[in-house]
């Protein structure tokens, strides 16, 4: 096993009287998809924001990047290291076309201040082709794209900075079946290209489809770290809810029993 590209240890974050994160550990390797799981309020988004520099962690924890201890205090710090974050709201400008959205804030210029549209469009095609994404025209406003295509544009935009770790906060929450498959394909592709991926999702089917490992948070603490391959659905749910006897397993038990009776 190689050393993790990103390793957090003992990360805490308090908001006033709320301890949102309590001595949390997390690591991700190159070419690995880590699912970050937990109930609502478990601290997943807070952890992602700490990693992306949107929040600063309390003192005491350590962030190790490529074996080197680093400090992430601003979003720019995280981007410089090579950490890209795709927030749930995507942050796209609906009125601008795909190329403009991809390069927003990082436009290629030729004369001072003037846009090099040709170069940007060429790079955009290159990037989307490398992701095996098929969007026929890059000059349509993002508003006219489907939810899945928008998600892909947001991901592609994050990849332009050539990150080594990509974090996605609930990328499939608003998507249909086909679009979800598309995004999951893309996540696998990032993994195959050697990126580390941290994926927040409530959808266990998605997690089982693409993740190599599940890191579970519960009430701001680590509540387990499972290889997806050798772990049952029930074990992960138990870790998320904190009890072997929980509403999900009870419900599942009823349904399997029902299914067997009707057979």
């Amino acid at each position, binding site marked *: 096993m190689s050393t993790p590209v990103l390793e957090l240890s003992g990360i805490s974050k308090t908001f006033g009287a709320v301890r949102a994160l309590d001595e949390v550990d997390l690591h991700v390797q190159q070419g690995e998809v880590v699912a970050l799981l937990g109930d609502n309020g478990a601290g997943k988004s807070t952890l992602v924001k700490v990693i992306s520099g949107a929040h600063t962690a309390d003192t005491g924890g350590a962030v190790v990047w490529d074996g080197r201890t680093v400090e992430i205090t601003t979003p720019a710090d995280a981007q410089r290291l090579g950490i890209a974050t795709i927030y749930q709201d995507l942050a796209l400008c609906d009125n*601008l076309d795909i190329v403009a959205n991809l390069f927003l804030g990082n436009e290629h210029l030729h004369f001072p*201040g003037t846009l090099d549209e040709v170069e940007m469009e060429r790079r955009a095609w290159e990037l989307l082709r490398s992701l095996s994404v098929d969007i026929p025209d890059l000059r349509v406003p993002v508003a006219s*794209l489907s939810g899945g295509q928008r998600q892909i544009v947001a991901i592609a935009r994050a990849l332009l900075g050539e990150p080594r770790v990509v974090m996605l906060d609930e990328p499939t929450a608003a998507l249909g079946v086909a679009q979800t498959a*598309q995004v999951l394909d893309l996540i696998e592709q990032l993994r195959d290209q050697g990126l580390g991926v941290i994926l927040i999702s409530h959808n266990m089917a998605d997690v089982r489809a*693409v993740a190599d490992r599940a890191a579970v948070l519960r009430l701001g603490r680590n509540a387990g770290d499972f290889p997806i391959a050798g772990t049952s659905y029930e074990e992960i749910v138990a870790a998320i809810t904190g009890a072997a006897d929980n509403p999900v397993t009870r419900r599942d038990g009823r349904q399997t029993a029902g299914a067997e009776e009707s057979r």
Partner: protein
Amino acid sequence: MSRNTPVTDPPAPSEGDTGRRDPRLLDTAATPGGWWRAAKRKVRAGELGAAPVVIGLLLIALVFQLLNDRFLSPQNLSNLTVQIAAIGLMTTGVIVVLLLGEIDLSIGSVAGLSAAVLAVTVMRHGWPEWAGIAAALGTGLLVGLFHGFVFAKIGVPAFVVTLAGLLGWQGLHLWAMSPDGTINTRSEGLIASLTQTYFVPWIGWAVVLLVLALHLASTLTSEHRRRAAGLPHRSLAETVLRTALLAVPLAAGAWILNQHNGLPLAFLVFVGAVVTLDLVLRKTRYGRMIYAVGGNAEAARRAGINTVLIRISVFGIASTLAALGGVMLVSRNIAASTTTGGGQELMMAIAAAVIGGTSLFGGRGNAYSALLGGLVLGAITSGLLLLPNVDTSVRFMITAAVLLVAVIMDAASRRGRKTHARGGG
């Protein structure tokens, strides 16, 4: 899980690499039925661009020409281009603010203030006319930066800041003009020449040729670069054809204006401002940032765009253009008075922007809205003046109807885009 699931059905192989548009969106335009379906879809999706206003303009011209055959006379059309210049410049400024998704209610008052500054500095204090014009424009710039600062930095809604400006700058304007009420300016000189200069015919033709040559050269280079980069590009024939299509209205305009006095300087200044703004908006990073802030300010901020600076500068541009409009008003009236800029200028400028096709909801529109919207309102005004027994009341009602149609189309197309977004796929 299958890999490489296409996001959409694979596009039908297109003939060559001519189209930049989404092949899935492109109804086959080969048959009349396909053309009609494409048009209907565009109406619903709000992608009509300038087509409605151009058609509206042609209709207006047709109707007024039928009612009075002097409407399309070179003299009337020439006067029209000079009449729309002042408000047109104000409209150009309003458009930038509308692109941000904001509104500037103060432009009329700023134009009035600038007129007062010009008249007072030149006529009372004996400044050279160029210095008076510079002072008027500088006043506009400062006022706009102030509006922008209070809006972007302190967080007061632009609507309120500029409403205060509407009152406040008019107050300052009245104070500066007192006790005179009206200050006449010289009937000759730089100020007067702004609206009294007409260029001899060859200059009009030279301007047209220069514009066409620059347009052709720039599209040829960019299509060549696209081709070299392996991107979809237009064929040489299409590029030339498009320039030829642009040549038709330009040549017609030059020919008509040359039949009267020639190309008016005031119109050239107005169109020059429109073209400059268009280039800034479409070709520069600054323009891209304006659209981004107007489309999704939070996304722009996260992309590292200094939204505060963009907003302040946009209000600065708007008020400077309003001030230039004020200078044009003085030039045309050869006077500044307490009522300069205080009449319908504000309403007409905003109406022209919206009629021209710039959205009230931010992020959508272009500089040419000022020209198209200005021509529509100018044509209505001028056409009604040629009719007997028709007064301002009718003009207001017709203008209101046109404005309402434009706003309804804006709102409908916005709804169309919303329902079309996230659909399908």
